[in-house]
Structure formats: C-alpha cells, structure tokens
C-alpha cells in the first residue's frame, strides 16, 4: 500500500495560514488575538445567536406575539435569486413582518479593488451583477476615463452602447422568466433562457466570454466588431422577437398571472423615491428617471429613444415596464448599427494608468437601475477608494414595505418583480 510514511510532517494549510497570520502580526508588532476555544458545538450555530436584540427594528421583528412564527426563507431557497435570506414573521399564511439578512455572497470586491490596478478592477466588477456584466464594466470605465482625462473614440462608444443594450435585452428577458418561475410557471423560464443563450452566443462572438465579459478597457473596448458579428447580429435581430413574443403570449394575458400580479405590491412614486428605488421599478411607479436621459453618457445623447413609464406601480406594471424596455433596446440597437462610424476602438492608454489625484463619479442605467461608481485616485496604480452603488441592493429596502399583508406565495412574486441579483446586492 502506498501510505504516506507518518514521520514526515506534511504541512497542513491551516497551520501554514496560522504561521502566516503570526508573521503578519509580528510585522505589525501586535500579539495574536486569542483563538476561541473549541467548545463542542455539535450543531453549528448558524441561526440567529440568542443575544438580546441590538436595535429597535431587530427587537420589533424578533418579538413574536400570539400565533406568529419566524420562518427562514433562507440562503438556499428555490426562488431567492441567489443566496438571500428573508426572516419572515408569519401569522398563519399572512406575512406580518420581514427582515432581509444579506451578506451570504459578500466577497469584499471593494477591498480587493483597492489592491488591483485600474484595468484589473474592470474584471473584479464583472461578477457583481452577473446578469448585466457589461453595465458593471461601463460605469467604472466612465469613472476611470474621467479620472485619467481621456475619452474613448467614437466607434468604441458605439460598440459599448451596442453590447450594453444587448445585455439589457437578455437580462429583462430572464426577469420575465424568473417572475413566472417564482409563481410556479415552468415554461416561460425556458423561453427566457433560449433568448438569453442566443444573445449570449452573440456577445461571446465579440467579447469571447458568455457571462463575465471583461470587454471594456479604460479608453475603449477590447475588440472591434467584425462583419461576421454584424451578420449574426442581423439574424439574431430578426428572430429575437420570436422567443420574447412567445413569452409574452404565454404570460401577459394569462388570467392566473394577472390575478396574482395586478394590485400586488403597489409602490407609489414618492415612496419609491424615498426608498431609493431606481430603474424599471421606479419608472413602473410613474417617475420618469432614466440615467441615459438624466445624465447622458456614452452616445445616448445622439440616439433617439423615450423614457417609458407605467403608473400602476404593481408587479404587473413592473413586468410590462420590462417588456417595453426590451422593445426600446431593440430600437436603440437598430439605430446604433446604422450610425456606427469607422475608426479605432481603443484610445492610446499605457498598460498601467496612473491618473492624477482626484475623484470621479460614473453612473449608468443598468437593467436594475442606477448603477454608479465613485472612484478616488491618489496618483498610484490602484484606486485609493472604489465604491459601487448597486441598484438591486438599495431597492431591496422596498421588501419590508411591500410584503407585509400578503400571503407567503405572493412575497415571491413581489421579489421576482424587483429582480435583485445577489452578486450585486452583497458586492
């Protein structure tokens, strides 16, 4: 038998980590923090530690009165769009109160970005809102170009707008599928994924990746548009209406769908503004705030499109809003392909850029709302501070406002209409 002979001490990664930690503390001239004792915890305590509630809101949620029960719609749940945990206070089937517990996918992207060069930061932000990676890269690209004082050439701006709108199309298409899936409909998600896979094949033809594209650079984009891509784009454009149309035909007039979504989770315009909601959810409540019109970036001031709003502000209005935005994006894509000029796609930028000390704020309209980046540079190769505002994170605050009073099954419809992506929520 080939047993590893016992006397060689095979270094165990954990001891090595501890050795490295000791070296780190020695470097800082601090003694090691005491390690918590290994008191036996057969049942690993992952729930709510039974300590007194620290804040008013926590006390309000975790005190139960008659007939109420706390249920965990926990990190592993069929329809929480990732690893979000909702501690739901339930009386019978009716939701009384709700506490979203986040952080199960917190990867510390902002801290990692502070140790990465400006180009690497564009790869760190990809897995944030992983259904709209192009938008994730667009905001930092704008911010860093402001910091570095450079502008992408015209053709690069057109390619950026093209891939960003393609990304918006399949992201909204998936939202329609997830909304129906969370309410039990299995077929629309298949049509949603057909549309997504076709669009993603197209985007991988230009950027080489299916999801986390890493396609933007400071001062332009990575690849030029080949004419093979243009032919595939026109064929895609002709039959994208089919899968989106199939989904619409399935869901929009379905009376079960309308019965469960009309008048559900009504969000008024002022309340949406106060809660920081942005994007399609805000426009579905009647507030015409679209960053592409409010602060035109890239080439959106040259393209003709209008801001569509619905007034009802319920789940059905948010669904219709996304369908309208898909059609809007297709209209934009047609204009972009017609007006795309010739020229370089990448400005002259050194490998590692060292922008002058300063601050920049880059905001884009992502499928989930206002996605903005606030970057501080200190002249060094890495950003001194890199802050990302994720729209789905801020619009999650709507849930404790909308969901109480509805049945548990309806909370899933309301959350699916908000369409949060946990990668962005937990950064």
């Amino acid at each position: 038998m080939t047993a590893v002979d016992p006397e060689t001490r095979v270094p165990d990664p954990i001891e090595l980590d501890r050795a490295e930690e000791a070296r780190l503390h020695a470097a800082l001239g601090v003694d090691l923090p005491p390690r918590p004792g290994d008191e036996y915890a057969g049942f690993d305590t992952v729930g709510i530690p039974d300590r007194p509630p620290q804040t008013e809101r926590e006390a309000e949620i975790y005190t139960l009165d008659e007939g109420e029960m706390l249920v965990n719609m926990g990190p592993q749940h069929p329809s929480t769009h990732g690893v979000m945990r909702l501690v739901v206070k339930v009386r019978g089937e009716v939701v009384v109160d709700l506490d979203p517990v986040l952080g199960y996918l917190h990867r510390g992207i902002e801290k990692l970005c502070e140790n990465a060069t400006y180009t690497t930061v564009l790869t760190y932000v990809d897995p944030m809102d992983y259904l709209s990676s192009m938008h994730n890269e667009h905001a930092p690209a704008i911010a860093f170009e402001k910091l570095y004082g450079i502008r992408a050439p015209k053709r690069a701006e057109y390619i950026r707008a093209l891939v960003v709108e393609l990304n918006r199309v399949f992201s909204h298409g998936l939202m329609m599928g997830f909304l129906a899936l969370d309410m039990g409909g299995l077929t629309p998600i298949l049509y949603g994924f057909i549309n997504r896979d076709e669009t993603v094949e197209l985007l991988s033809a230009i950027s080489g990746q299916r999801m986390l594209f890493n396609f933007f650079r400071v001062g332009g984009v990575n690849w030029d548009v080949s004419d093979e891509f243009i032919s595939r784009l026109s064929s895609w454009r002709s039959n994208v209406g089919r899968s989106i149309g199939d989904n619409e035909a399935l869901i929009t007039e379905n009376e079960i769908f309308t019965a469960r979504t009309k008048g559900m989770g009504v969000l008024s315009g002022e309340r949406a503004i106060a809660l920081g909601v942005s994007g399609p959810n805000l426009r579905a409540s009647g507030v015409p705030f679209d960053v592409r019109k409010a602060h035109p970036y890239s080439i959106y001031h040259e393209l003709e499109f209008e801001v569509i709003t619905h007034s009802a502000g319920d789940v059905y209005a948010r669904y219709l809003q996304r369908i309208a935005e898909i059609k809007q994006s297709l209209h934009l894509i047609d204009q972009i392909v017609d007006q795309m000029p010739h020229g370089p796609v990448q400005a002259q930028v050194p490998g590692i850029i060292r922008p002058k000390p300063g601050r920049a704020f880059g905001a884009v309209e992502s499928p989930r709302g206002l996605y903005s980046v606030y970057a501080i540079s200190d002249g060094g190769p890495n950003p001194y501070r890199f802050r990302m505002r994720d729209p789905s994170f801020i619009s999650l605050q709507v849930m404790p406002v909308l969901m109480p009073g509805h049945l548990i099954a309806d909370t899933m419809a309301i959350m699916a209409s908000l369409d949060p992506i946990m990668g962005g929520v937990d950064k």
Partner: protein
Amino acid sequence: MAVTTPGKQDPGKQDPGKQDPGKQRPALKEPGHKDPGAILTRDSGSERALVPTETSAPIIIPDQATGDALLREFGMEEHPKGGFHGLLEVIPTRADWLLDLIRANSLWPLLSGLSCCAIEMMSSATSMNDIDRFGMFPFRASPRQADVLIVAGTLTTKMAGPLVRLWEQMPEPKWCVAMGTCTTSGGRFKRSYSVVQGVDRVMPVDVYVPGCPPRPEGLIYGLLKLQELVKQRRGQWTTYVDRGPQRLAWEGDVR
C-alpha cells in the same frame, strides 16, 4: 458677484483630505512597520483594539470525533458494527454493486446556486443544453431528496455554515461537484477576507469543474465524469464515509 472660480482652490483653505490624499497613503504597506502600534492598541471607546484579522463567529464544522460523542450521548452509533447489523452489512454493499449503476443514471442535483455559476447551471438545465438527457433533471429543492450538491458560485464564510449543514443533511450516498474556479480555490477572489479559499476546505469534493463560469457543456462534462466515478466506485461504501482531500475539523474564520 465675486465668485471664486471654483476650478482653482486657493491653497490657504486647502483641507488635507482634498489636497493630495496620495501623500497620506500610510507607510503601513511595507512589512515590519512598527508605527501602527499606536492605532491598534489605542482603546477607542467601547470597542476593543482594532485588531486587523478579527475572527468572526467560529464556523465550527462538526468533525468526526465530536459528532460521535454526541451520537453516543443519544446511545446511537454511526455505523452499527457487529452483531445483527454486522452480518447484514453485507447485503447493502452487495446491493450497491447493482444500485450504483441505477444511481449513476439518476443523479438528482440540489437546487442551490450561489452566484454567477448558478446561471450557467440553470442554462445547462434548460432546453438549449439539457442535463435531463442524463437523468439529472429535477433540481430537488430540499437536500433530503438530492444526490448531488453542485456548489455553483463563490462560497463565503457566512455561507459556509449553512452549506455544510445542507451537505450533512443529504442522504448517503451523496456526491459533490465544485463548479467554477471561485468554488474550487477562491479563484478570482483569492485572499479576500470573506471568501472560503476552496470548497474542499469545508467539505469533500468529487469533481472539480474549472472555468469562470464554466460553459454549460463544461458542467455537463463534469457531471458525466461524476457518472463514471460512481460506476467505478461501485460497491466501495467506505469511500463515501471519509474521503477526498477534505478538512473536516475546522474552526475559526474560514479564510
């Protein structure tokens, strides 16, 4: 209306923060810098000194010995050895020789996606590239009915406890597929303060699928490899109990 041209800041009122944060970059970066002791040990109000690598609530993954202690406490045994069970233990192992063939062709994955790889996992489950052809279709929502745990996405320290709980609650025999480089070794988030640098630090993994995210075809290739693995290990029951390069005894903040 004497509007000081906002562009130019008269140096007099330049506050340090705006002037040139670069120069304030602390010299902390270089190892062996002794100065920060003042910050770290100063007792700032109610909190203890700010020690950089604070450990969070220890995610104590129950290891073999402590688990057995609890079982004995309830008078149970993990493997009822000898006596009536000993004799009958032959039947399950011989039956496995045949049942593993059936299990290989109906590996039901657990519906648990962590991050971006979950979208590619869903894409592999939908009609474009379909894992239903290989018998893996119904993504069971509860671990009680799942055979395979596809860890699709970045495992963070806060999610490590629940994920191990899900893994422990799946009935034997069970397999684990680590999908994506973040899952396999921390990948893109190497050395992050809250990412588990590799799922095999908390649970045994059978198949590693590289890629960030791996294409659906890549995941399907990994699952086919898992089928081969199941067929090869037919009847090797001992390989399910403690296997693979795993760390079961684990405590403290999962770096």
